[in-house]
Each structure stands twice: as C-alpha cells, then as structure tokens.
C-alpha cells in the first residue's frame, strides 16, 4: 500500500498551550479517516498543520513520500507549494469567494496556479458541478445559495485542483440539520471513488459507515484508532468510551 500522508511526532503549541503532543499517523492511498474527539482536543490544529495553515514546532510531515517538514525544518517555499498541491481543504465556514460566481470560484486557482487554459478550466469545473448536482447554479453568487449548496461548491472548488488527499474540518457543522445530508452524500460519493480523505466530524453515522478507519483524539494525542466497527462496538480506552456515551 502506498502511503499518502505521514505525520511523525508532531508537536504544536500556541504560546504555552500545548495543543498537539506527539501525533503519529500514516494514511494510505484511498483511506477515509474519520477524526473524532472532544472540543479543543486539537483536531482542527492537526488538520491545519498538514497543509501548513499552522506551523509545527517539532516533527515531520510527508505527503506522497515528499517532505513538507522534516525534523521541524520546513522545505523551501517553492517545494512546499509543490508538496501541498496534493492537498485540498474544505472548511466548516465554506469560505467561498463571495464576489465571484460559483463557476468563477472553481476556475480561479486552476487558471492562475496551474496555468490551465480558461476553456479547459471551465470544462473541468462544469464536470465537477455536474457531479455535485449544482450545474444549474453555476452563474450564481454564493450568497444566493443554501449552506448545503455552498459547501458542495466548496468541495468542487477543492477538487478542481485535482488533489490526491482531501482534508475536511467539520464540513457539516455550520449547516442546518436538514442540509447536512446532501453534503455527506457528496462526501460518500467521493469516498466511493477512493479519494483519500481525512474528515474531522461529529457525524457518527458518517464515521461509522463511510470511514475506513476512525481516530479518536483527546488532549493533543491520538488516544485510540480502529476500523469503525471495532471502534464503535469495542472501544478500548476509557476516554473513548466516555466520549461515545456522550455522543451516541
């Protein structure tokens, strides 16, 4: 199995708040890893370290075998760009560009970062919008869409860069309950196509039946990990059991 992502001994603090205290994680190609854990346990921080939205203090990160940071030392700027181009991210708050139409949101980076011709970028974008069922709103501005539609556009925007690994930080937490389904459906379809995904979520049902592995974080470390069935039916650690009791 080819490893897509390797985190080794990741430490990260904000001031004197030790948020990550030694994270080790290997994610293989095609895996869907659900990350669970109480608020403040460092789930978002871990995700944000992977694509260098946060800078780690100690440890190594390899993406597709190439170093982003090794022993706490980051590779140079252009190499980082190259390594990170394999990642895509979906945020809790969508973060679509409000002054651009749906289509413009999707083609901006492919054209300016990858240097793809506009026609081709539009083609790719339209295919992706078809896939997430939003081709009919391609000329609308984000403010005219529902939250669920906005998040599906955000997923399509990330996919337009053709990433090998997708990071999701609570993609349904900002949505009204009746809108989470359509976003989870899109994510399930992505998982079915063997996209490598790391999904921080509170959606137990998604972790249970769409993930290939579940990771439970608490206090800045990975407390327990397992295949979903084992994780939910036979949790080993007390903190995991307590968390599952509260969230089921």
């Amino acid at each position, binding site marked *: 199995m080819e490893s897509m992502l390797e985190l080794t001994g990741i430490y990260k603090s904000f001031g004197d708040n030790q948020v990550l205290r030694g994270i080790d994680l290997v994610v293989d190609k095609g895996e869907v890893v659900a990350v669970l854990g109480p608020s403040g346990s460092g789930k978002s921080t871990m995700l944000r370290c992977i694509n260098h939205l946060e800078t780690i203090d100690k440890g190594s990160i390899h993406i597709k075998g190439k170093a982003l940071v090794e022993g706490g030392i980051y590779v140079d700027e252009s190499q980082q760009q190259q390594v990170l181009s394999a990642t895509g991210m979906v945020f809790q708050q969508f973060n*679509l*560009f409000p*002054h*651009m139409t749906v289509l413009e949101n999707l083609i*901006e*980076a492919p054209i300016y970062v990858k240097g793809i011709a506009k026609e081709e970028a539009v083609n790719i974008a339209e295919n992706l919008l078809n896939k997430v069922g939003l081709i009919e709103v391609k000329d609308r*501005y984000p*403010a005219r869409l529902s939250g669920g539609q906005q998040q599906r556009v955000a997923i399509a925007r990330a996919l337009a860069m053709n990433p090998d690994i997708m990071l999701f930080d609570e993609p349904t937490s900002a949505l009204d309950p009746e809108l989470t389904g359509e976003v989870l459906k899109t994510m399930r379809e992505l998982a079915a196509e063997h996209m490598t995904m790391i999904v921080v979520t509170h959606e137990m049902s998604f972790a249970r039946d769409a993930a290939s592995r579940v990771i439970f974080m608490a206090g800045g470390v990975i407390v327990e990990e397992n295949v979903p069935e084992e994780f939910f039916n036979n949790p080993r650690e007390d903190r995991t059991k307590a968390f599952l009791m509260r969230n089921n």
Partner: protein
Amino acid sequence: MDKFFDMTVLIAQGAAVTLEIFVVTLILSLPIGALAALGRLSTFKPLRYIMEFYVWIMRGTPLMLQLLFVYFALPMIGLKLPDIAAALLAFTLNYAAYFAEIFRAGIQAIPRGQFEAARVLGLPHWHTMKRIVFPQVLRIVLPPISNETINLVKDTSLIYILAMNDLLRVARTIVQREFDMTPFVIAGIFYLTMTAVLTWAFKQLEAHYGKYDA
C-alpha cells in the same frame, strides 16, 4: 440677465479652482490613504506607531487649523509653498488620514477564512490581495468613501481663508460689490451639482461592486 450671466461666468472660474483642489486631493489622498492603512496593519511596529500617530493628529485637529499651519507656520521655518500647493498639502494629508481609517476597517472586515481558502488553493499572496481581498474591501469601503468625498467638496470652501479665488470666495466678493444675494444662490447650485454628480457616480459604483450580495 447679462449681469446674471457675467456672475455665473466669474463663479464658474471659482468653481474651476474648487474642482482642481477637489480632484487633486482625491487622486493623491486615496492611494496615500491605502498605503497608510497597510502601514497601520503592518507587523513592523515602528511603522504602525508612526501611522497611528499621523492618523491621530489629522483626525484630532480641525482641518482649518491644519490649513493655517501649512500656510502660515511652515514659512516661518523657511518652507514657503505656493498657495495652491500649501492648500493641496493640507487637504491631502488630512483626507489621506480619513481614508486610511476607512481602508483599515475594510481590510480588517475580510474574514481570515478568505485568506486561508486562497492559501490552500495555492494562490500566491499578491494574487490573493488583488483578486480576492481588494474587490471585497472596495465593496465595503465605497459607502464611507462616498461620504468623505462629498465632505471634501464642501471642505474645499475652507481655502476661502487663504485668499484663493475658489467658488465661495468669488461669490462673496461679488455679493459685497453688488449688494446682491444671487451669487450665493448660484454658488449653492454649483455645490449641489457637484455633490449630486458624485452621489450618482458612487451609486453606480456601489451597484456594480455590490451585485454579489444576497
């Protein structure tokens, strides 16, 4: 009727002076204000403090005082500027400070998520500023800039005290000579026309840049 026509021509010449101050001040103070805003948001502390001090002085003292200072006090230390340059210097420094505050608030209103979204897509910093941040800032700052711009039209009348023949001064000179109030009415119409044109222009701009609102 002839007399009315003559008055209007004289006042129009004054209006040209007013317009010159207005246009030049606007063209200079907008970019200076934008740069000052970046200075105020800089992580380089000395620059930030200098910009804060500058904005504090300019917004905390009357424009009239600043005009008099540039006009009368600077020559005492050997810095004698031509009349129009002195007026432009005072107006530009003052308005740039107000614009700086507007731009600063506008940039700070852009959510961090916009920068992060651009970053994870691999967009370079300058591109993010130009294509993602600036258009959104523009949308936010247009209404307050519109306000300040209309204030500037009216504030130009302060150069009256510097004995420059602007719209207001020409009107008053004729009133004093002819004992006739008509020039004031004509001057008022000139000011109203300018502010009306500006109001209309800013409305168009706001509609253009606001088309993405819900």
